[in-house]
Every structure is written in C-alpha cells, then in structure tokens.
C-alpha cells in the first residue's frame, strides 16, 4: 500500500491490512512511502517521502501478524499512529493497568506485549525460566531494550520505581529524539 500519496489515514491502512490477513490469508502486506519523480502532476504531494510514518506502519503490521494485537487497539482515537513513540509502547502507556508484569510468571502472549521485549526474547525467557528464576541481569544479557521495558516489568530482584509514574511523564521520557526535518522537495 502506498503511504502519503493521498489523505488516507493509518486507521484505514491498518484495517485494510488486517482484513487482508484475516479474510484472505495474505502472508505479508508491504507499505511504501510515496516518493514523487520530478515534474509529477499537482495531484500528488511534492514532499519528501514520509519514511517515519512508513516505519511506524511496519511496526504496527508486525504487531498485527506476530503479536496478536488488533488494529483497533493500536490506533486510539486519532486515526493515525503516533510518530514520536512506537505503537507497542503507545499501547502499553494507554493500558497501564496491565503492567507491571512479572517476567517469571506472566503468560508468553502477555510478555510479548512488554515494550522492548520481542518474540524472540520471549521464547528465550520462557526457556530460561524453566531452568531458574529470571533476574534483571538476564534481561541485559538477552539484550532486551531495557530503557523501554524497565517501567513495565517485575523480576525476582527488581521492581520498577517508575510504576507509579503517570503515562504522560513516561512518554515524555521515552519518546525518540526526532530527526531533523527532512528537506522538502524543491526547497
């Protein structure tokens, strides 16, 4: 699906993708930020391709396919995905009552909803906790993204001090530094 050539919002794109996955058994949907060639007609935007938006759509797409999220859960009210934080973190911030999760006890499907812990880490955590209790250092060893995961987890030797922190504050702390605005096409 082409992103940014017309005014279609992320909600439409993701719901389309979801119905393609569910109704038609498609394996992958690809998103491509619209990139005009010189002297394109005025009906298309003459702007730099919205690469970050494309990236967020891919992140959301992976959450649909692999992690069991529904498109409705990821979108919220606005109809577009947030650009400053990834969709998984956005979901976690909007659903603080689910967290913090105990890494030693939680269901694998729930573990996969912790920001900064991916499907592969979940497999590895489950394998590890069969042998022994999981400690905070193990998550470092597994190269989980702890900056993101920290407020949302409990291990046998760690409880988040930030658990009480309001979502708005956490979001301000965790947002990605925005890249300098790309130069628009033709100045």
């Amino acid at each position, binding site marked *: 699906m082409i992103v940014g050539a017309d005014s279609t919002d992320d909600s439409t794109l993701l719901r389309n993708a979801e119905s393609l996955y569910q109704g038609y058994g498609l394996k992958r949907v690809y998103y491509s*930020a619209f*990139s*005009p*060639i*010189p*002297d*394109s007609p005025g009906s298309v935007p003459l702007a*730099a*391709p919205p*690469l970050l938006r494309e990236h967020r759509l891919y992140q959301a797409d992976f959450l649909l396919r692999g992690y069991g999220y529904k498109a409705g859960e990821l979108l919220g009210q606005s109809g577009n995905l947030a650009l400053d934080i990834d969709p998984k973190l956005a979901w976690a911030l909007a659903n603080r009552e689910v967290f913090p999760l105990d890494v030693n006890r939680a269901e694998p499907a729930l573990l996969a909803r912790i920001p900064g812990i991916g499907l592969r880490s979940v497999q*590895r*955590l489950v*394998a*590890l906790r069969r*042998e*022994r209790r*999981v400690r905070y250092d*193990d998550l470092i*060893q*597994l190269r989980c993204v702890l900056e993101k995961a920290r407020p949302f987890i409990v291990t046998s030797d760690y409880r988040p001090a930030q658990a009480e922190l309001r979502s708005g504050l956490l979001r301000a702390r965790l947002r990605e530094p925005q890249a300098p605005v790309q*130069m*628009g*096409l*033709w*100045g």
Partner: protein
Amino acid sequence: MIALDCDGLFATWRDQARVLLGHGIDPSQVTWLQGPVADLLAVPTALPEGAGPFRAKVPAALLSQLEQAARYRGEHRWNLLYEVLWRVAHGDRTAMLAGDRLGSELQRRIKQVNREAHHLHAFVRFVPLPEVLAEQLHLDLVAYHEPAHDILESASAHFADRLGRLRWMIATAHDGIRFDGQAFDYQRQCPEPWRQWARNAEDPGAELWRTYYRHTFNPARLNPDALRLHMPGRFWRHLPEGMLIPQLEGQARQGKQRDGQALEVASRAGKQISKPMR
C-alpha cells in the same frame, strides 16, 4: 595443560571432546591450538587413552548447535564449545541458553554464522563463462566470495537447488566448492586455478546491471545505515554495482535527495499505450 589441534574439523574436535569429557578433564585444563601462534603456557600433553569412566548425556539439540557455532571464525573457537559441553554434560542446561553469559556468546556465534550463510546466498554473483571455456573446464558459472566464517560447505547446497543442472564453482580466500550438475566437490584449500578462473571471469551483463541499478536507485529513500546493515561494505568489492554505491550516496547527500527519483528517468518520454478496444 593439554594442548590439542583439531585441524579446524568439527568431527575431530567432537572425538577429542568426548574423550576429555569421559576422563572428567576440566575446560581450564585444555586448550585448542588455533593457527600458527600457539599458547605459550600450554605444554603439549597426550590425550588420555580410552573412553574414560564418565558417561555424559547431552541433548541432541546441543550437538547441532555446537556444530553450527564451530563454523564461527574467532578467538577461543573450540575452547568455548568445550566449556558449553562441559557445563551441559554436568547438568547445567542454562549454558546453551541466551540468558547465560556463555550461552549468549554461543547463540551470538550461531546467529553470525547463519547470517553469513544468508550473505553467501545474497551476494554471490555468478559469472557465466564463455562457451568455449565452459566446454573446456566443464563449468558454466563461476563466482568469487569472501565469507567471514566457514560456511561455504554447509550453505552451498542452496545453489544446487536453484541452478538445476548447471555446473558452477565458488572460490574463496580459504576453501572452494564445485558442483558438476550431480555432486559437490568441496576443497578445504581452494585450488589456485579455481581462484584464477573466478577472479578473471568477465561479467558480460555487468554494464546492463549497473545501468539498471543507477536508474532504480531512489535518492529520496536513501538510508546509509540500513544499507550497510544489510549489505556490509566488505562485500562491495566483489559486486558489479559496488563502485556505484558510494558515488550515488554522495550525490544524494549533495542535494539529489531533493529531486526524488533520478532525473534521467523523469526526462524520458515514456511510451504511449493505446486504450484497449471494447
């Protein structure tokens, strides 16, 4: 200290490790020689005779993981494997899991090895030999590749599946492999003529491919970090488009990024396609 040499072969290492394990010899007491520089402290001692009293049971998955990790070229290549084997054989299964300090290194090596196999499949560019030479050498396609790990033998079957009965050969700085349409011929030391054929082969399609690459390159979408992540610079030397990449990147940085797709493409008149008649 026991100093061993397994000649870079997993099968040899496995036999040695089995004997060591049977006699209960601790990993700190063994070292495997690697390359010409030997461990100065290691006094070569003979391997104990016989299988030894300790019967170790390890999961089958461990053996295949060790075999994969053995293809990794790096320090403590064989010592690390024995350390993992020792811990798992003595009941500590976490040694093969990524959550453990040692297991994490093991898993990292396996990942690197698999990634290098992917690189082989992605960046080997076969060059067709001219007909006369092909008949003379019984070879249709040749390629030169420099993998960072010893993956050539295990990862090359992919090409036999893809190329059917074509006869091909891949030469590297270390080993080489040749397929005659039916069977593989793997050489641990790549024969010098193979290397010569592969390096001197001239690709008749290279110019066409470079033209295609230049025109499909979209400066507005350039992401140098992702580019290098997926196609490390060390492979560029052996790719026909390798010389173009830095050049196109430079142009993109100097303002072409603003133009969207290449001007050459935009300035073409294109082709009129008549509407289908009903």
